[in-house]
């Protein structure tokens, strides 16, 4: 077993455990902490694939900025533990069969896949921050600017909602 496969399994296990714990935890802060573990483990997986820039940005944006805001709001509201309720009928009769079906589908897909999976393209074409930014600001400049407009509109919406009514 090569070291990189070992690291992959550790990080993948961390991500899965974090994701499961995110749903099972009863306290919102513990759920948020589990989500941070997932984010950091994902960043580690990106690093393993050779996408250093994406890994660093994953931690800075998702692990840092967004999750800090989550934690900040939960702390500010000082929300207590949530109460366990019985599952709704829809969840019991619709959700469980659906989950089993999806799990079966994935298992079938893995079982039918022949030979080795194609390796991730870590050939340096998308990994360097220079080539990445060249692509963003030349070929994909309109989608990129449109996305930033979308975020701007969201910020404006938040300001309008937060404004006190006169």
């Amino acid at each position, binding site marked *: 077993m090569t070291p990189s496969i070992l690291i992959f399994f550790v990080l993948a296990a961390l991500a899965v455990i974090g994701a499961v714990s995110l749903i099972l935890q009863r*306290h919102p*802060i*513990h759920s948020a*902490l589990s989500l*941070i573990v997932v984010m*950091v483990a994902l*960043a580690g997986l990106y690093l393993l694939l050779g996408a*250093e*820039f994406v890994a*660093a*940005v994953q*931690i*800075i944006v998702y*692990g*840092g*900025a967004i999750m*800090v*805001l989550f*934690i*900040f709001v939960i*702390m*500010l509201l*000082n929300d207590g533990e949530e109460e366990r309720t019985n599952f709704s009928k829809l969840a019991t009769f619709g959700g469980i069969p659906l989950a089993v079906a999806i799990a079966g589908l994935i298992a079938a897909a893995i079982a039918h896949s022949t030979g080795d999976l194609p390796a991730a393209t870590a050939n340096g074409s998308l990994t360097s*921050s220079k080539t990445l930014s060249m692509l963003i600001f030349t070929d994909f400049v309109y989608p990129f600017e449109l996305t930033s407009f979308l975020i701007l509109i969201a910020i404006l919406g938040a300001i309008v909602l937060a404004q006190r009514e006169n």
Partner: protein
Amino acid sequence: MNEFLSQYAYLIVPIIKIAILVLVVLTVDAYLTWLERKVIAHIQARWGPHRVGPHGLLQPLADGLKFIFKEDPMPANVDKVAYVLAPFITFLLAFTSLAVIPFGPQTFTIWGYQTTVGIADVNISLLVLFAITALGVYGIALAGWGSNSKYSLLGGLRSSAQMISYELSLTLSVVGVLLIASDFSLRKIVEQQGTSGNGLLSWNIFPQIIGFTCFFISAIAETNRVPFDLPEAESELVAGFHTEYASMKFAMFFIAEYTSMIAVSCLATILFFGGWLSPFPASWTFTFYLPSVILIPFGLWVIFDGIRYENIFGRILLPGIGTILTLLGAALLLFPQVNGIVQGPFWFFAKVFIFLFVYIWMRGTLPRFRYDQLMSFGWKFLLPVSIANVILTSAVILWRTRQ
């Protein structure tokens, strides 16, 4: 044995380097507290620590022992996971941030494994540092929330708000340096500042004076030091987020604070003050002997001052330290090769020391911000200025390349 070493050198060499760095940084942290207490005491016309050892030199040791042997009670109704995890997160992240900092220019080979001065030479080291800083908020936020005390909670909330606000201007203020160096690697950024051979004149501080001002102010806010230490404002919040902590858990917050001070000083040195480069032009060869010229007179002064110390222990210890310093300086004169290796780290640590001194100096001089002043200063002044600096720098670079 040798075969084993060369086969696993990629594991063994970094572990040895990490162990050395952690030991050195812990010692420096301890003596930084001594220096801080001494300097502030003299600013306020007091003596500072002077009971434990000559000039209080053994005070950090006494403090450390006291921290270890103190009882570590856990308050009732705390959130156990967050309460225990918080000091570890803070401590771990503070030390992790030192891992990507290059301390010198050399690369050397041990057991067939090529390595550098510094733990890891990553090509996105600046981004890694910012990623670690971004995670640093959690330790303080969790400590504040997990302690289940209103002072801690208020301290934690203040601190998270402050760190979110100043992280933006911290990141934006270095964009100017990135544009000049056009690389994320701290090593490349330093090397780029030394290409012209003019010494001090080619450092980033001159084209990026606005960027440096924004960087330094936001860095002080990120490390929660005076005048931005509102999270632990003792007159309002007892001790802020670490009110409920005692013993080693408290010490871990304390060590983490000093370690992040060191990390930020290293970063300022690398980005704006040429890292390990000498401030003198490359043609001035006599500056090669500067480490000895500083060490020998300082060592002699310690010897002659120590002989007259009031008790016998000091009369032995101080001249001993002085003799070691003088011999070190003499050894550097005798072995020019060793002196050549020492040059880079000498300048690096000299610059870092100046920044650490400025940190302490400010603590003895400046009053604390009011909370609303802190927020409006960060958002309404620092952030626009650092964005303006980015636009200005890129405009100048564009204008120069078009010519």
